[in-house]
Every structure is written in structure tokens, then in C-alpha cells.
């Protein structure tokens, strides 16, 4: 049993950012990593994935993108390299191949058992990731067993799928990107769409995420916004990172021949049932996109910068088939596989503390969990809207570590 002031679980970008701030405060700590640095990025992402954020937003505390393509998007391999270089740059005390099997509370704080060692610590930062487990709608289990199905955690490229038609469920960043590449591979895609976030890649000459950062939207704090529960459950925006900086949305997918259907609501035998609310889901997404563009336009005018940027633009509304079919017979339509782009969940099965909410997430306020000495990083909208993105880790980790350091000082003074 090793005793140490603080343990961080997970050597991804969030855990490493925390390590940076703990080092700055002179807190002795280790980072336990189940596999290797940037493990999920390396092993649990599809081949063509790129970051949603442009390279100039690839930043971690004290470190930033230094390549020659600030407007490009890091590929998964480049992201892994970026995180590995960061770990080296800050000389993070990472212990690889230490898979945490349980965390229990003790009078000291926590006891952590890994596959080959035990640790005791008064302060624990959980940065094990938000995307460890697949998340499915309840009716997914009714899919006929003979139907091959894939979740993005195991999907790598279209070549894995049988030849023929594919039903892709979900239209977040993941769903639209996979629908795009699967359809382009010659496997016709039917895409089931629930509530989604539509964004143009480029607006008035700049990347939309540059705008969202510049006008302050990505910096909105968790305690400033109206409905945090909702903000934390918003699907990722329909964006992809390509060298042409192309937009992707339901219109562009329809143009290439993808068939758009409503939210998948149930499966009865071989029949898939879709919601009749597709039109409203698209209307909501269009309205929200236009509200964002208006906010950007207003900011530009207030700053007197209209001449600096391209003209304002409005994009055509999402086209929805007037009588889009509400059912799909898997056999009659000859569907050969299903891809469930229906989200991810964290995996805290090893955390033996009563801190999880009914959805299995750690209850916390700005990363400070509802248990003394326990902290969480890497969750959606942890302290700010940008928490989801790589550059969001800096402010999250700084605030969490400030609280943690104060907690340890108070504790040792007592």
C-alpha cells in the first residue's frame, strides 16, 4: 500500500491538465492509467475521426498546437501524439497499466485497488473519461439478434460492416460523420434523427467554434445558465473536421442520398418505428442555429467590426420529406447492419461510494463531488460550456485543483 497526497485516475487530456496544476502547487501525486497515455483516444475511436475544434484551439495548460495548420483539425493519431507530448512536456507522474478495480472510502480518504497495487490518498481526481461505455435507447435490445450492430466504441471503418444498407441511429457529430463515410463507401444509409445541434463549419470567414469562443459562449459558466441539466445533455454539434472545412448537416447528407427518418422509438419484430416529430426536431435545430448566428452578428456590430468579416449569411432550412415514413421493415428494406450512434456513458462501476446520480454520473458542482476529497474532470459542461473540448480542460482543472489544494491544506492544518 502506497500513501500519497493525491491520486488522479486517467492519463487523458483532463487528468494531465490536473497533474500540471498539482505540480504547480507542489502537491505530490500520481496519475493511474489503465493502459497507456491517451488510451481511449488510441484504442476506442474510429479511424477517420478528427477533433471538432480547429488546431488553434488545441491547447492544454502551458502547452499549445505548434504546427503549421492552425485552421486544420487534429486526426486521432495527431491527438494522441499531442497528448503524449504534453505528458512528456509536464513530466507527468503517470503509472501505465494500472487499471483501477475499486475505490473505497477509508478514515484517511480513499483506498484505491488497481490490478497490481494499492494506494491510499486523501484526495482523488476522477478523470477516467466520459465515453467509456456505449449508451443505447432501451428498445435497442429488441433488435433481432441476427442483425449485426455496432457502437462507435467498436466501429473503426465502413469495411467492418456487411455490404448493403445500413441504419445509423443518432445525428450528433458521431452519427452524421459515420452516416457520411458509410454512405460514401457504397452502403446506402438510412439515418434516424432525434434532437440535434446544427452548426455551419465556417461562418463569416471563421470557424464556428472560434466564434463561439470569441463571443464568449464557450466560456459560459455552469452557474450562469438557465437549465444546467439540459445543457449537460445536449448532443454534440453536427460538425466534422476536413481539410476543405466543409459543413455537414441533414441537407448535405440528403444531397448525397442518405435517407432521413425520425427518432427511433421502438422495435417490434422486424419493424422499426420512428417518431413523427422529425419536422419539429429540425425546426428547433434551425431556430437555435439562427439564434447563434444572430448573436455572432450582433457581437460583430457592437464591436464595430462588420468590415473585418464576410457578410452575414443564413442557411437554408432543413428539408424534411413531407411524409417521411414512420416505419422501416428491416427484412423488406434489406437492412444489413445497424450503427448505434446513440451516445456514451462514463464507467464508474469501480467507485464504491454513494455519489452517483440515477444516470450513473458522479454528482458534483463544478467538479467538486458530493464527497469530501473527491473530484471529477472531463464531464460535459463541468464548469463551462467548453468543458467538452480539449481546451476546456484548462479552466476545469485549474478550478478543481484550487479547491483540492485548499482542501488538503485545511485538512493538514486540522
Amino acid at each position, binding site marked *: 500500500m502506497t500513501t500519497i497526497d493525491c491520486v488522479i485516475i486517467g492519463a487523458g487530456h483532463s487528468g494531465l491538465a490536473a497533474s500540471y496544476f498539482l505540480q504547480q502547487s507542489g502537491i505530490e501525486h500520481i496519475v493511474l492509467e489503465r493502459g497507456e497515455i491517451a488510451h481511449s483516444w488510441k484504442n476506442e475511436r474510429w479511424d477517420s475521426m478528427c477533433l471538432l475544434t480547429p488546431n488553434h484551439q488545441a491547447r492544454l495548460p502551458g502547452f499549445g498546437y505548434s504546427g503549421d495548420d492552425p485552421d486544420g483539425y487534429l486526426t486521432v493519431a495527431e491527438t494522441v501524439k499531442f497528448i503524449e507530448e504534453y505528458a512528456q512536456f509536464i513530466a507527468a507522474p503517470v503509472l501505465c497499466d494500472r487499471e483501477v478495480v475499486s475505490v473505497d472510502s477509508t478514515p484517511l480518504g480513499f483506498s484505491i485497488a488497481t490490478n497490481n497495487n494499492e494506494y491510499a490518498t486523501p484526495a482523488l481526481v476522477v478523470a477516467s473519461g466520459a465515453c467509456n461505455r456505449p449508451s443505447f435507447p432501451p428498445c435497442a435490445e429488441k433488435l433481432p439478434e441476427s442483425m449485426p450492430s455496432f457502437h462507435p466504441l467498436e466501429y473503426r471503418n465502413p469495411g467492418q460492416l456487411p455490404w448493403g444498407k445500413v441504419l445509423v441511429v443518432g445525428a450528433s457529430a458521431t452519427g452524421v460523420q459515420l452516416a457520411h463515410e458509410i454512405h460514401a463507401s457504397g452502403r446506402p444509409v438510412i439515418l434516424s434523427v432525434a434532437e440535434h445541434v446544427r452548426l455551419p463549419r465556417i461562418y463569416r470567414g471563421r470557424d464556428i467554434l472560434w466564434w463561439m469562443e470569441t463571443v464568449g459562449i464557450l466560456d459560459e459558466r455552469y452557474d450562469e445558465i438557465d437549465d444546467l441539466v439540459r445543457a449537460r445533455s445536449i448532443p454534440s454539434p453536427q460538425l466534422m473536421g476536413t481539410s476543405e472545412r466543409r459543413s455537414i448537416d441533414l441537407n448535405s447528407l440528403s444531397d448525397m442520398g442518405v435517407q432521413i427518418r425520425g427518432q427511433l422509438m421502438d422495435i417490434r419484430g422486424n419493424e422499426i418505428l420512428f417518431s413523427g*416529430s422529425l419536422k*419539429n426536431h429540425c*425546426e428547433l435545430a434551425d431556430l437555435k442555429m439562427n439564434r447563434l448566428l444572430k448573436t455572432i452578428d450582433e457581437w460583430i456590430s457592437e464591436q464595430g467590426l462588420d468590415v473585418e468579416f464576410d457578410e452575414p449569411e443564413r442557411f437554408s432550412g432543413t428539408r424534411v420529406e413531407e*411524409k417521411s415514413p414512420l416505419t422501416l421493415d428491416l427484412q423488406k428494406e434489406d437492412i444489413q447492419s445497424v450503427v448505434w450512434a446513440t451516445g456514451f456513458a462514463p464507467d464508474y462501476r469501480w467507485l464504491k461510494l454513494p455519489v452517483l446520480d440515477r444516470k450513473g454520473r458522479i454528482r458534483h458542482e463544478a467538479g467538486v463531488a458530493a464527497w469530501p476529497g473527491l473530484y471529477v474532470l472531463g464531464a460535459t459542461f463541468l464548469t463551462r460550456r467548453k468543458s467538452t473540448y480539449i481546451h476546456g480542460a484548462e479552466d476545469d482543472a485549474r478550478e478543481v485543483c484550487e479547491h483540492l489544494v485548499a482542501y488538503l491544506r485545511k485538512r493538514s492544518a486540522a
Partner: protein
Amino acid sequence: MTDATVDNGVNVGALLDAREALTGAPEAGKFTWEASCKWIKGTHSRSTCQAFYGLGEKQSHKQEFTFESDHPEVLAAEDNGATPVELVLVGLASCLTAGVAAVAQRRDIQLRSVKSTLKGSMDLAGILGIDSDIRNGFDGIDVHFEIDADASPEDIRALVAQSQKRSAVFDIVTNPTQVSVEVN
């Protein structure tokens, strides 16, 4: 939080309090709604609503509400009330309208008038068993809102969109629901 000058007659404060309270006590949020129906004659029936269950106990409307339903004379009936499918349209209209008022209150938008017309189209070849490929129910519902309010056309569209998103009846008619029918 809410602009005191905007009054659509919706107690948004109470609704937000309820949301807060029900987040902490999910059992209290489980409601059961009831209707009782009695056959009169032919296609004429009379339904009533009074009791319901919620907040962990039996509840009751202030009075019993009665609904007559029948078919029109062109369908060889006596036309003692709206058809059942029209009552579905009534339910959808009322639910969306209530939602518009609540969302408008929440967004500080004063409503002056909210009117809607609903059209549900249907091919009787379905219910009459003429063609088994044609469904019994509506093949589509068109809703048209006319809203006069202190807001931009875009904000008014957003009101109506949000009201659909939060509407129980919109969900009931757009999504499948398990229905279990027993006798005696």
C-alpha cells in the same frame, strides 16, 4: 426572474418549483390520468373525467367533466357529439396551446391571441376494411397557429417549436405507446 408586466395567466414560478421538487422526489411525479366511458346508443357514448392520481395520492378535478362522442349523419349516425378522432385533435390543440402560454410566460412574451386550426386526414378505406395497406388512423395531422404576441416572428416560431417539444399529446400522437386492453 419573470417580467412582472407579462401576464399570460400561467404560474411559471409554481411550475418551476414543481420541477425542482419532483427532481428530488421522482415518485411524486408519477401521475395516472383517467377517463370513464359509457355506451349510450349506436355510436353515441358519454365519457367523464374527474379522478386522477398524482403527488403520491388520489386527486380530483373540482367537478366532473363530460364529453359526448358520436359520428356524423353522413356516417349514418345521430351526431350527438364530436367524433373520437376530433377529440384527439382537441387534445393535441389544447396541449400545444397550454404549452405556448407556459413557454411564452417563461420567456417574458406577452400573448394577445393564440388561435389554431387542426386538420387530421384519414382514408376511410382503412377503418372500413377495404384496403389493409391503409391505416385506420390519421395519415397526417396539420396544425396551423395564428399568434399575436409581443415578439419577433422567429421568437414566436420558437415558442411553438418548444411547446411541441414539451407536449404530452404531441408525444402521444407522434410516438408509439403500448396499449393494453382487458375485458371484465
